């Protein structure tokens, strides 16, 4: 465990080198909030309530989901693995005395820990600038369970990206697939619009998949809605973490011999 803590610490320190990136990341959280502010501002100009949302509860939803989205830096994992396998330098991770998957999870923990405070400050600034009457639950149990769900969600995304990165061993070039994945994930996690706007049948199907519990449900829980889905949510996302872990083991066992360390 100690060596993974050290890896996380190294990545926290490494972020300090990219100070401009940190500042820009904070500034660009505004894009999604500005989108919500203008779009829903125009919509709520003629409607007082849409799908149970008021203007301010909608903006609160976007603030929280933008914050959670910004925290998820797991895209780095699949890109790093894919690039390294393609140019033959993945050996770097194979020769060090650590579990490669745990290494990348520790890396994610380090990066997330560093950005956590900055993203929180950014969210506060946008609430102040856009004069949003921020809605947030006061129920301690809900906050605690949501926090756990967020952690499991971040873990799942790290596992998913690790798994996708490993697919480079078989398919060699997955860059295009990763970009398509990003487009789809942005929608199915409810980062573009709350999933409650979709027809009920689609929402019911989405509840079977993990993406519903990554950003959407935690955001809804934190604005005080869907408390009844909390426990089921925790169980489903946990099960998906287990399933993808099995998939990772199988994939790694099956394809690791394909890596020749030469590059394409």
């Amino acid at each position, binding site marked *: 465990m100690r060596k993974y803590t050290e890896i996380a610490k190294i990545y926290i320190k490494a972020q300090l080198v990219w100070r*401009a990136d940190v500042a*820009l990341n904070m500034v*660009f959280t505004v*894009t999604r909030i*500005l*989108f919500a502010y*203008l*779009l829903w*501002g*125009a*919509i709520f*100009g*003629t*409607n007082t309530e*849409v*799908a149970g949302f008021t203007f301010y509860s909608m903006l609160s939803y976007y603030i929280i989901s933008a914050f959670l989205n910004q925290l998820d830096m797991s895209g780095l994992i699949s890109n790093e693995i894919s690039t390294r396998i393609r140019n033959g330098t993945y050996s770097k991770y194979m020769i060090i005395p650590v579990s490669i998957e745990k290494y990348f999870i520790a890396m994610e923990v380090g990066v997330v820990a560093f950005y956590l405070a900055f993203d929180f400050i950014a969210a506060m600034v946008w609430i102040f600038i856009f004069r949003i009457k921020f809605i947030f639950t006061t129920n301690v149990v809900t906050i605690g369970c949501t926090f756990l769900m967020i952690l499991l969600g971040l873990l799942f995304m790290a596992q998913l990206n690790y798994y996708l990165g490993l697919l480079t061993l078989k398919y*060699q*070039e997955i*860059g*295009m697939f990763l*970009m*398509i994945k990003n*487009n*789809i994930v*942005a*929608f199915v996690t409810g980062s*573009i*619009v709350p999933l409650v*706007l*979709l*027809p009920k049948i689609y929402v019911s199907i989405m509840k079977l998949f993990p993406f519903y519990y990554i950003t959407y449900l935690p955001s809804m829980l934190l604005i005080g809605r869907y408390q009844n889905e909390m426990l089921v949510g925790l169980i489903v996302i946990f099960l998906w973490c287990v399933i993808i872990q099995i998939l990772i083991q199988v994939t790694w066992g099956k394809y690791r011999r394909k890596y020749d360390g030469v590059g394409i």
Partner: protein
Amino acid sequence: MINQIKKNSRVISVLIKIRFQNLMMFRLGFFGPFFVDGSLFLIQLIVFQTIYLKIDRIGTWGRGEMVLYIGTFSMINAINMFIYFFGVIGIPDKIKSGEMDLYLTKPISPLLRLTFEKINPGSFPLIIMSAFIIAYGINLVNIQITIEKIVVYVFWIIVMSILFYELEVIIRSISFFVISNSSITRIEEAGLELCMQLPGIAFYGVYKLIFCCILPYGIMATIPVQSLVGDLNLTGAIYGVMVVVGFTVITCLIWKRGIKNYNSASS
């Protein structure tokens, strides 16, 4: 003038031939841009279909106008990806590495070569997909389509594709003057992401100034749609043309100044 056009046309046709030969060597991911951007705009379409399940209008626009907007933005983006995007995005690297020397020593305009040397035929299906989205939007809006309206719409699509091109060139030309332009390209990404989802009619006050004047991504698809549905007045049309003319002048000035400022690999 005519001789220059003939010469440039020959150059462009040679560049396209070379590009095809190159693409045949690297067939992997030929249709990559189509799948990536296609998925992006299809999701956009689903998002607004979803929103319109709950409401009737966003501002003055109904579902049809919004579908037309997404189709039009997708079309301008498709033209961008098909013709010049992959050439223009290489400008900063060529400046940093000094590779721009090779472009300056050739007896053709470096910008012309950069613009047409990386045409991407794999993006062509995006144009067809966008046309289908536009046709669907027209069907939803239920407007009378005349030849005159189509001609005007196509005119605006071409004009706005030029504006998109100019914005891309301006942003990449900043590399002539600074070490890294990554912050500016991120502003471009953020502006595009926002305006891809929001039509110009949703902007007001300072947002209108930013997205309809300083970074005019907000008018790129809005004006063609307004012209098609009959919402575009004379002032709006003149404004659209003025913005494009203004940005053409700015692009020429920045490019020429940049080339003068270019010091080979030490830039």
